[in-house]
């Protein structure tokens, strides 16, 4: 990271966070940490607070924010209770989040570089010369080929508009996951309670407040789910890759 780069363009505080990765990275960078388990655990609470406080929450992304909150909680749980064994799927979620954050961190840095040079030293195209027009139709031109071309273009557009809705992920799985996680954390605390010695009281307090936090997220998940009854909540992975050729 280059500390000399102007970054004001990207830290307009009144602007709503566009996506969860942006928020996670901002919180990590504020603490001058690198993307790792420790950093993720240390920002979990703050992330959830932000999510709950954000009024202009992009509706479409609600589900994604809650999903990331859930994964962060996994990391946090593991950091508080090392005995807690993550399932293979959970561990995969955590690894996936770290990989994506690393990729996004680079993309964000790259975007700053592009912002710095975009339009600054433009390469201009050749000046337009008056075209010598001569009527030259082509072999592939006919009334029916025009009809086919327009029908194809309209169909491709309809597909692009439609695709996001096709990939709705049921929110219920997140709520279930939260509940499961809460239950497992409680159990793990009970199991290892006797191991707590001198600083036990402090640690118990941390975990109790953490459980309260989990409860909040659960409520958030429920709220998001209820919202889903009024409008579609879209998950970000579209593969709406059908688009007409440029030209």
């Amino acid at each position, binding site marked *: 990271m280059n500390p000399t780069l102007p970054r004001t363009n990207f830290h307009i505080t009144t602007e709503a966070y566009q996506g969860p990765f942006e928020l996670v990275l901002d919180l990590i960078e504020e603490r001058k940490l690198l993307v790792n388990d420790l950093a993720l655990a240390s920002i979990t609470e703050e992330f959830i607070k932000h999510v709950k406080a954000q009024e202009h929450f992009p509706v479409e992304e609600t589900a994604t924010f809650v999903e990331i909150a859930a994964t962060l909680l996994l990391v946090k749980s593991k950091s508080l209770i090392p005995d807690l064994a993550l399932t293979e799927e959970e561990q995969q979620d955590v690894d996936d989040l770290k990989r994506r954050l690393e990729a996004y961190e680079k993309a964000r840095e790259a975007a700053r570089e592009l912002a710095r040079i975009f339009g600054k030293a433009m390469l201009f195209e050749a000046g337009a010369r008056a075209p010598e027009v*001569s009527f030259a139709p*082509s072999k592939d031109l006919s009334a029916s080929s025009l009809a086919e071309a327009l029908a194809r273009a309209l169909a491709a557009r309809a597909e692009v508009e439609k695709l996001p809705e096709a990939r709705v992920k049921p929110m219920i799985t997140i709520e279930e996951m939260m509940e499961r996680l809460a239950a497992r954390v409680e159990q793990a605390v009970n199991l290892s309670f006797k191991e707590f010695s001198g600083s036990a009281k402090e640690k118990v307090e941390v975990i109790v407040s953490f459980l309260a936090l989990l409860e909040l997220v659960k409520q958030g998940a429920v709220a998001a789910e209820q919202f889903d009854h009024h409008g579609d909540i879209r998950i970000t992975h579209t593969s709406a890759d059908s688009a007409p050729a440029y030209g």
Partner: protein
Amino acid sequence: MLTPPQALEALLFAAGEPLEKKEAAKLLGIKPEQLSRVVEALSGELAGRGVALVESANELELRTSPAAADYAKKLRESELSRDLGKAGLETLAVIAYRGGATRSEVDWVRGVNSSASMKTLLLRGLIEGREDEADRRRVRYTLTTDALAYLGLARASELPRYGELAEGAGALIAAEAAAAAETPAP
């Protein structure tokens, strides 16, 4: 930092058409009497290349060099004989079915920038542009009479599946125009 001959080359390239010598000197920030040395230097640099500097009494222009005439001719022939392809046909179809369209309207229906296709269709005499009657700052493109005759059509409504396709394109344009009016840059 560019030398004056290099700056002149860039200016003439960007101008496209012949540039007045007085204007060129002004844009280069030199005195008119200094220009001839710059012109001479650029001519020398371009000697034997694919592009040449053409100088008349009052004007300067870049042109493909005589040695490159064959390539320019081949390019032109290829441009005129090529299939229109998917992008070209789509662009022409939007203009045909709408009975005329602006550049943005074509872009909106296709979802991509159509400048290159429009240029080709203009060059091949398949469409022509006129000031839009509703908004004089815009150009409205329509099929040329040659194109309509080639397609064997007296009017747009004779196109296959006219009602359905014209309506589909119209709906997209209306939706995009409304969206463009309310959203700023992303």
